[in-house]
């Protein structure tokens, strides 16, 4: 009986959870493997991976200007990752950061375009608030339907991204079209009164980003709200059992999450683009998902990962001008890194065992 199957087979076995040290080792190994896989990909294209990686790193640091550009890449990424992390901590799959950034930028731009005669700092504060409120409201919509009808938030937030994008194209082609641009549809450049000031060569968005980082860290770790977010994320029924108002927590957290993304939009428009462009979010909202997950939703981890990713983004633009390879390489490599990190989590709780069949 069954003699045909005397071949060894592989099965999955649960192990006692590894220590923190081993866990970190595994994750580092996964990261190195990911870079190796990326290197093989480069090799396959006929380039020297070490040379290319070198170009990326030196490209991001080679001059003060280059470094400032890297930081400029980092600001929106860091901020929106923080926003996304708040929602993810609650297991609310907010992949609508892109849309929340856009709506925040749109709301802020209204004041930049039509009230640029206000005093500089008042204008910036109003723009800041408008961005936060716009993004917050855009985050509130899916949260409302989630808490009321359990509507799938992943797809809902995603649809809102596209809707937001078309709001910009509508404004660009119609009501907000720059009369000065001869036929070509675009929105007027902000006057310098509506632009963010520079501190150490980079617009002061970086200061706001760092402040947000500390605030989010404290919020998640030391406040009642933060505690509620973790409990809701772990189990809604436990949260209800503990007397928490789950609906309220979902709504509140998503307003904050969307609000942070909205601020990102304002910073991007007023600090980086100096106008409202349809590329204001430009995929940052999606990259933020990868960043926050890679950082295990830890704010300081997010700082580290978003810095690494910005080096990659800036470096790959240098790589493009040097080798003619597309900047999309950055998202390919980001994807590969996360794939490997996702895969390595397995080895923290399980292992494979090779077993010989037939007991002998």
């Amino acid at each position: 009986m069954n003699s045909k199957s005397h071949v060894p087979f592989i099965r999955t076995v649960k192990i006692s959870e590894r220590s923190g040290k081993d866990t970190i080792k595994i994750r580092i190994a996964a990261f190195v493997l990911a870079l190796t896989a990326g290197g093989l990909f480069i090799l396959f294209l006929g380039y020297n991976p070490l040379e290319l990686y070198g170009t990326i790193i030196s490209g991001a640091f080679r001059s003060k200007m280059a470094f400032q550009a890297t930081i400029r890449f980092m600001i929106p990424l860091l901020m929106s990752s923080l926003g996304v992390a708040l929602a993810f901590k609650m297991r609310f799959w907010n992949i609508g950061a892109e849309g929340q950034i856009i709506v925040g930028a749109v709301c802020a731009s209204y004041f930049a375009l039509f009230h640029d005669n206000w005093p500089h700092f008042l204008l910036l504060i109003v723009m800041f608030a408008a961005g936060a409120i716009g993004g917050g409201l855009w985050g509130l919509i899916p949260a409302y339907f989630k808490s009321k009808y359990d509507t799938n938030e992943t797809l809902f937030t995603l649809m809102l991204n596209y809707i937001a994008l078309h709001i910009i194209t509508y404004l660009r082609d119609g009501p907000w079209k720059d009369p000065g641009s001869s036929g070509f549809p675009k929105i007027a450049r902000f006057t310098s009164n509506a632009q963010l000031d520079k501190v150490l060569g980079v617009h002061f968005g970086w200061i706001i980003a760092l402040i947000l980082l500390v605030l989010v860290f404290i919020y998640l770790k030391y406040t009642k709200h933060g505690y509620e977010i973790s409990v809701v994320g772990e189990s809604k029924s436990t949260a209800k059992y503990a007397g928490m108002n789950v609906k309220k927590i979902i709504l509140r957290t998503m307003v904050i999450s969307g609000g942070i993304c909205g601020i990102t939009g304002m910073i991007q428009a007023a600090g980086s683009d100096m106008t409202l462009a349809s590329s204001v979010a430009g995929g940052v909202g999606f990259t933020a998902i990868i960043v926050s997950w890679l950082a295990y939703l830890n704010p300081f981890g997010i700082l580290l990962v978003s810095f690494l990713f910005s080096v990659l983004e800036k470096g790959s633009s240098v790589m493009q001008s040097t080798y003619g390879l597309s900047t999309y390489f950055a998202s390919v490599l980001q994807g590969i890194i996360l794939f490997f990190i996702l895969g390595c989590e397995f080895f923290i709780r399980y292992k494979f065992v090779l077993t010989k069949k037939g007991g002998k």
Partner: protein
Amino acid sequence: MFIKFLIAAVFAGTPLLFGTVGEIMNERAGHLNLGVEGMMAMGACAGFMAGFFYDSISIALLAAFLAGMLGALIYAVLTITFMANQNVTGLTLAIFGVGISNFAGEFMLVNSASNSLKLPEQITAQISNINIPGLSTIPVLGPLFFQYNIFVYLGVLIAITCGIYYSRTKTGLNVRAIGENPGAADAAGIKVTKLKYINVLMGGGICGIGGAYCSMIINGGVWMNNPVNGQGWIAVALVIFASWKPFRAIFGSFIFGAFNILKYYFPKTIITIPNAFYDMLPFVITALVLVVTSIRKSKENQQPASCGVNYFREER
């Protein structure tokens, strides 16, 4: 005019049909794969390039299928074998797939002679509309049913086959059982892992073909970045609209196709609406569909119960 509108809707809905059926195959096996956009993008790129170099529609289709499958393979290994979070893995696949597709596209563009990529005549002839002899000349019905390109027929055929697979075959029953309760399926002697892999991979391949449609037909045979352009995401939402049934996916896709092209056919004399709102329409409708389906919940037409949850046999 109305007939033309319907025909255009079918054309516009075809990539959605592939994406939706592909995702149904994933979700029926208990895997919520948000990477449809990525798998379609990979298929778009591979299909286009294969068509560009080999002048053969069958090679292009095969390449698109394999590329979509490759994307699905990454997802399958991570979620089925390594039990990684399905949401995050799917999202990453979407970003990665679009990235690698655009990267490869630009790579080919830069290395091409004329800095543009256009499918050769030979293959555009193969993917142009087919007039089915005897049937295509029937008034109204002819153009409405029998004058499409090979993709459209292939899509409908796949959807019907898939529908029969789930409702009329033992394997289909087994797959549905896995999607509902993998533990029960496993105990009943069904090879859970194997069937999950097969369904996720096949689903990915089908998504890939849908991507090829985007790159080869929609853009008129010229390579442009982001050929899929959000269709994959709509497809994921359409699965809910189709309540996980391939037959319903056919109609759902064509209805959404109609929304996509409404701006070209809506009589401008009645009311002028800015183009941006037309472009927004499919996404608004999808959002509404999500809300409506979540408000009225029925017991039978629900997402497979284990969807999104990984299965480990020795879980205690």
